């Protein structure tokens, strides 16, 4: 029989407990900063990516270890979605890995908050890099990240899909009206099975490029927004007449296929994104061939395009093995053999040494050719964006998605995003 006292004592309100994060300085040689072949130091390296990148990274690490017997590299990777959430946890516990693959969008957050090693204080060879590229790894005049490769924005399309629909392949000389006409053409011939593309106005970087086409920088040098509500409204209204038509795939379908992109999932005939995703798109969609074209612009002389570091190599400010970390970074960005291991899967190698050491074929050639074709339009890479930019980019996508779901009006969406942006800038001021 159940009695009351037993009962009341049994009912316990559970509370969630937090884990303790232990940061372990590994390796038998904790005292010194350098190792020897008999007694190597171990550094931790982490990156995001898929299995393909993991395989290539393991090869690169093995090569590094064979050439540097006094250093062991303990590699570890995760998918992109949770990568920076893991780093945030480690940073809070003071246990960031010695060397990390990093993204431009979080570089300022970590650098300005003293989490990253000033790479100017260690030996890394940057002689093989374009001078216009290096500032993208610098925050307040110091170098915190070295780009390992670069990517550029473009429009992907699937020629076989266009042919089967009877749509004429575009040539890439287009303004926004012509691009939209192309999307409508695909949508109407696709009969509900194939759409033109996803709503490209939801992509932050495309907005950034459009701003540059109109000679506006997204952020001012003192960390404020460089554009007005009206600009964002203009941008999001670009596709207003396409929403809900077969020119643009519905937000419902986009959500269904996530984390694959609608293009990778075969829902659309084209998509705008960074060119180094070519191999990933081909793997996802099973297409035999994909083509890349420049983004549309209403000003044919200014495409607003630039080379962005696709990933940067950074070191933790707290690393015990500065020298080993620097040697590993130097190897990953400069060694010709490493370039050939990754080919264009990280982007096009950023240093001349790696570009020269890499042999291209198939997909890689297409990406390289595309970047050559847009060379004359390229402008300087933007500086690392403001602190908290990662949040802004995510909410840009989300608010645009709410707009596509019809949960927000155009004005409501613009106001919602600006409110978040202003709140965030105030928060981090």
């Amino acid at each position, binding site marked *: 029989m159940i009695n*009351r006292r037993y009962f009341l004592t049994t009912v316990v309100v559970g509370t969630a407990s937090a884990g303790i994060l232990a940061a372990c300085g590994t390796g038998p040689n904790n005292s010194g900063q350098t190792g020897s072949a008999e007694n190597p130091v171990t550094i931790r390296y982490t990156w995001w990516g898929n299995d393909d990148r993991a395989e290539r990274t393991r090869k690169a690490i093995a090569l590094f270890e064979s050439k540097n017997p006094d250093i062991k590299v303990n590699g570890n990777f995760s998918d992109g979605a949770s990568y920076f959430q893991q780093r945030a946890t480690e*940073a809070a516990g003071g246990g960031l890995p010695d060397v990390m693959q990093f993204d431009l969008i979080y570089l300022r957050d970590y650098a300005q908050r003293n989490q990253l090693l000033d790479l100017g204080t260690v030996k890394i060879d940057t002689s093989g890099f374009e001078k216009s590229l290096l500032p993208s790894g610098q925050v307040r005049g110091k170098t915190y990240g070295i780009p390992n490769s670069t990517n550029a924005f473009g429009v992907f399309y699937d020629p076989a899909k266009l042919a089967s629909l009877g749509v004429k392949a575009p040539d890439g000389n287009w303004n926004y009206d012509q691009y939209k006409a192309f999307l409508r053409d695909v949508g109407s011939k696709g009969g509900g099975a194939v759409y033109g593309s996803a709503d490209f106005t939801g992509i932050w970087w495309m907005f950034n490029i459009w701003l540059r086409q109109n000679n506006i920088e997204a952020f001012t040098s003192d960390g404020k927004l460089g554009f007005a509500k009206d600009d964002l409204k203009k941008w999001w209204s670009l596709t207003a007449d396409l929403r809900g038509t077969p020119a643009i795939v519905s*937000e*419902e379908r986009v959500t269904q296929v996530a*984390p694959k992109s609608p293009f990778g999932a075969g829902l659309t005939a084209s998509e705008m994104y960074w060119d180094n995703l070519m191999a990933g798109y081909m793997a996802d969609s099973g297409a035999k061939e994909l083509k890349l074209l420049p983004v549309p612009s209403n000003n044919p002389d200014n495409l607003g395009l630039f080379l962005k570091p696709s990933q940067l190599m950074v070191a933790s400010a707290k690393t015990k093995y500065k020298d080993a970390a620097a040697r590993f970074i130097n190897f990953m960005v400069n060694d010709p053999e490493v370039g050939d291991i990754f080919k264009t899967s990280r982007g096009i190698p950023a240093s001349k040494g790696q570009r020269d050491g890499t042999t291209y074929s198939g997909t890689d050639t297409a990406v390289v050719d595309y970047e050559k074709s847009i060379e004359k339009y390229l402008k300087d890479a933007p500086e690392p964006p403001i602190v908290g930019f990662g949040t802004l980019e995510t909410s840009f996508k989300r608010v645009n998605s709410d707009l596509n779901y019809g949960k927000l009006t155009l004005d409501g969406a613009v106001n*919602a995003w600006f409110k978040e942006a202003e709140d*965030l800038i105030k*928060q981090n001021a």
Partner: protein
Amino acid sequence: MTSSPTLSRRAVSSKAPLPRKSRQRAADARAGYTFLLPWLLGFIALTVGPMISSLYLSFTNYNLFEAPKWIGFDNYATLFQDERFLQSVGVTVGYVVFGTPLKLAAALAVAMLLNSKRKGQGFYRSAFYAPSLVGASVSIAIVWKAMFGDSGPVDQGLSFFGINLGGWVGNPSMTMPMFILLTVWQFGAPMVIFLAGLKQIPADLYEAASMDGAGPVRKFFNITWPMLSPVIFFNLLMETIHAFQIFNSAYIISNGEGGPAGSTLFYTLYLYLRGFSDFRMGYASAMAWLLLIVVGILTLIIFRTSKSWVHYSGDSK
């Protein structure tokens, strides 16, 4: 769930002199505390400590990198102007209000079916319990996402009957029913407790009622319900608290974003995103404490109302 071990107060032989008795008692206590120590250390280090620091952090602006800055009640005040916060409250309350009673009803119904003696009872009990064993796991969330996705089995099954809803995962008005179905399907744990409670009800009560001509409905409301009410109370409390803490499945099914259109932005998911994606750990801590307070108040209310409907053996009521 943890419950603290109680020390045995076994009296030593009454012939023994007093000092020896108290020595024995002290030794007992020492042994007791020694056994208690691992749990106690864990409790202090892993529960009390983090709770105190999170309470402190909830009054600060803390971005995980720099030392927290004291801002008083600002985080709590900002919460109520945050539309996404209000949205997450709405989503979570909807889930608790609809999901929990349905889950308990399903658990009780199946427990009553399994209570009668039939062939293969053991198999059925395991079969019905199994989903809740794997239920919290990531893999189930992935399976559900696939099942309710575009042209997944659910979509195809429904269109066979002429109902064309499309995939549920991408449709903001269908995601909540999907999550409620998921939780109802995991009724195993409360079911087992119900089953144990049902076994405690003396069969002669039912026999007597039958002789008085009571039907099954009458038996349920006049015998099963009151006799089972402490167990119902327990399950209601636990499942309500549990429902407020939904996270895993929401994180997986919405790719950690709370979409589509914020329809799966559960409270804990938003809390997590605020803390680890937006680096606003102070804000997230304030959310956590608000949740604790609200759940605490709800628990209190359920306790209070229980006096009028929960019957314990030995009570005069």
